[in-house]
């Protein structure tokens, strides 16, 4: 009897402040974002006024939004597929036991935990036409002499490549963790039955990894959709707006043009897209 009352009292003493602080911490930015999106609000001017859906209309109807959305779609699809395919292949290879496996695993992790800004610089440097190992040396050997980051199509390809480079290790680690949870007996049984690796992959590994793969896609989608650092450091969204994904458009709107209202509206739109896609994916793989 005494024990339960003690617990009850503790419960409120501990839980109430926690929930309050968490609620404030997490909700405040969202509420404020929502509020800002309904205001005509230029950061450096004191006046602001109610805009209703005005900001949303301006954002959604602008041609720049449509182009950025298209760029984002290409970027997200290519980057998600690229990093998951490569990460999956790496996970399959590194699920084998061999000497030096741990060192290789650690080395492969590095691109994912260096600052993305440094990763962006690294690729910008590498692809540079005058001083880069790839852009200045290998590509001219192959007869390509153009500046990759100066060409709209190649620039988009380059930022996707750099993003895949950064994000593949994470996919690899997630999928490796999933692979290691598959009981070895299943593979042994399949082998005794004479199944080749291709069959094992299609019949056993992929069905069993469905949940983990789904999770990897969701995480990867959210990260790719909100990627800013690598693209910003490599191209700044250029040439022109060829690599300007929605986060770069949001930054430009809010902190170059100081139109906080429109930036907030764009953020809300992006958040809705994220919630829609991730909940659809969650339902698809029944997480």
């Amino acid at each position, binding site marked *: 009897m005494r024990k339960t009352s003690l617990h009850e009292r503790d419960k409120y003493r501990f839980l109430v402040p926690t929930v309050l602080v968490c609620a404030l911490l997490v909700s405040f930015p969202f509420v404020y974002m929502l509020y800002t999106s309904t205001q005509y609000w230029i950061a450096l001017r004191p006046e602001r006024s109610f805009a209703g859906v005005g900001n949303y209309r301006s954002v959604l109807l602008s041609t720049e939004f449509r182009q950025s959305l298209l760029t984002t779609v290409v970027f997200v699809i290519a980057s998600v597929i690229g990093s998951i395919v490569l990460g999956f292949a790496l996970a399959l290879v590194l699920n084998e036991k061999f000497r030096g496996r741990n060192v290789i695993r650690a080395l492969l992790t590095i691109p994912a935990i260096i600052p993305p800004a440094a990763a962006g610089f690294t690729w910008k440097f590498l692809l540079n036409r005058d001083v880069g190992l790839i852009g200045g040396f290998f590509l001219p050997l192959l007869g390509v002499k153009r500046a990759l980051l100066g060409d709209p199509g190649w620039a988009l390809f380059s930022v996707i490549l750099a993003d895949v480079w950064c994000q593949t290790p994470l996919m690899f680690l997630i999928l490796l963790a*999933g692979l290691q949870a598959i009981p070895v007996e299943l593979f042994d049984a399949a082998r005794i039955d004479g199944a080749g690796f291709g069959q094992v992959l299609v019949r056993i590994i992929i069905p069993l990894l469905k949940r983990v793969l789904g999770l990897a896609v969701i995480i990867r989608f959210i990260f790719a959709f909100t990627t800013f650092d690598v693209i910003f450091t490599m191209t700044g969204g250029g040439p022109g707006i060829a690599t300007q994904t929605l986060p770069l458009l949001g930054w430009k709107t809010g902190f170059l043009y100081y139109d906080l209202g429109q930036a907030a509206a764009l953020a809300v739109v992006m958040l809705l897209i994220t919630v829609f896609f991730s909940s659809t994916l969650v339902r698809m793989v029944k997480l």
Partner: protein
Amino acid sequence: MKLEGRWRLFGIAFLMIYLLFSLVPIVWVIISSFKTHYQTLIMPPKLFFKPTITAYKNVFLGGMGKVFLNSTKVAVIDIFAAMIFGIPAAYSLARFKSKVTENIGFWLLSLRMAPAFGVVIPVYILMRRFHLLDTTVAVNAAHLLINIPFAVWLLKSYIEEIPVEIEESALVDGATRFQTLIHIILPVSMPMVVTVAILIFIFSWNELFFAFVLTSSEGMTVPVLVASLAGSMTFNWPLLCAISVCSMVPAFVFAFVVQRHIVRGLTLGAIR
């Protein structure tokens, strides 16, 4: 699963090529950081040259040491602030279940799913009002917005796995909840606390967007320096490479120390 025959050859070849793809860019930046500006311009590049540490001298004697100091300060303060709030919060969420807090996980991580340019707007407005723009305080506040929920979430899932029995004997002996938290739960949770601390450090050290919007010179952090130098038109390649290499040092250290736990952290605790 044993890869055999043809598949084994494929596997080895793929791993070799991927390792090159993964590491050559970083090695190339490290090599170039020891060149002179003139040497970086020579094509085809030379692998053997007289290395110089001029670029590194320029980083730390040229006033950029302060930027590294700022980054360290932000990351360390972030770790302590997130822990002071995060540990008790995680404990109470793990031990006192209630209907309100059942689905708190998704909610706690929702800020990480939002585009950063939206999340930063309220922080930006607040910091401007209090004249804290371009200070490390502003960067700290923005990072804590992400790191506190993150720490709570990871620690909560860890504490949930600690059996309640080990606390109960202490409680029966008259210890307060706070005492059991400090003397019993905290020591057992140390591995996770250290992991979370490292992940917070990495997040804070790497984070560009918030710091970029909130600071311009005095409060600048390392990624902001890298991004603004990389975006400028005049290039001192060895200097930029040296700054980048310095910014990667924590990654080099942590890749070997915590790769196992990184999965948990980077997947937002969804995979253990």
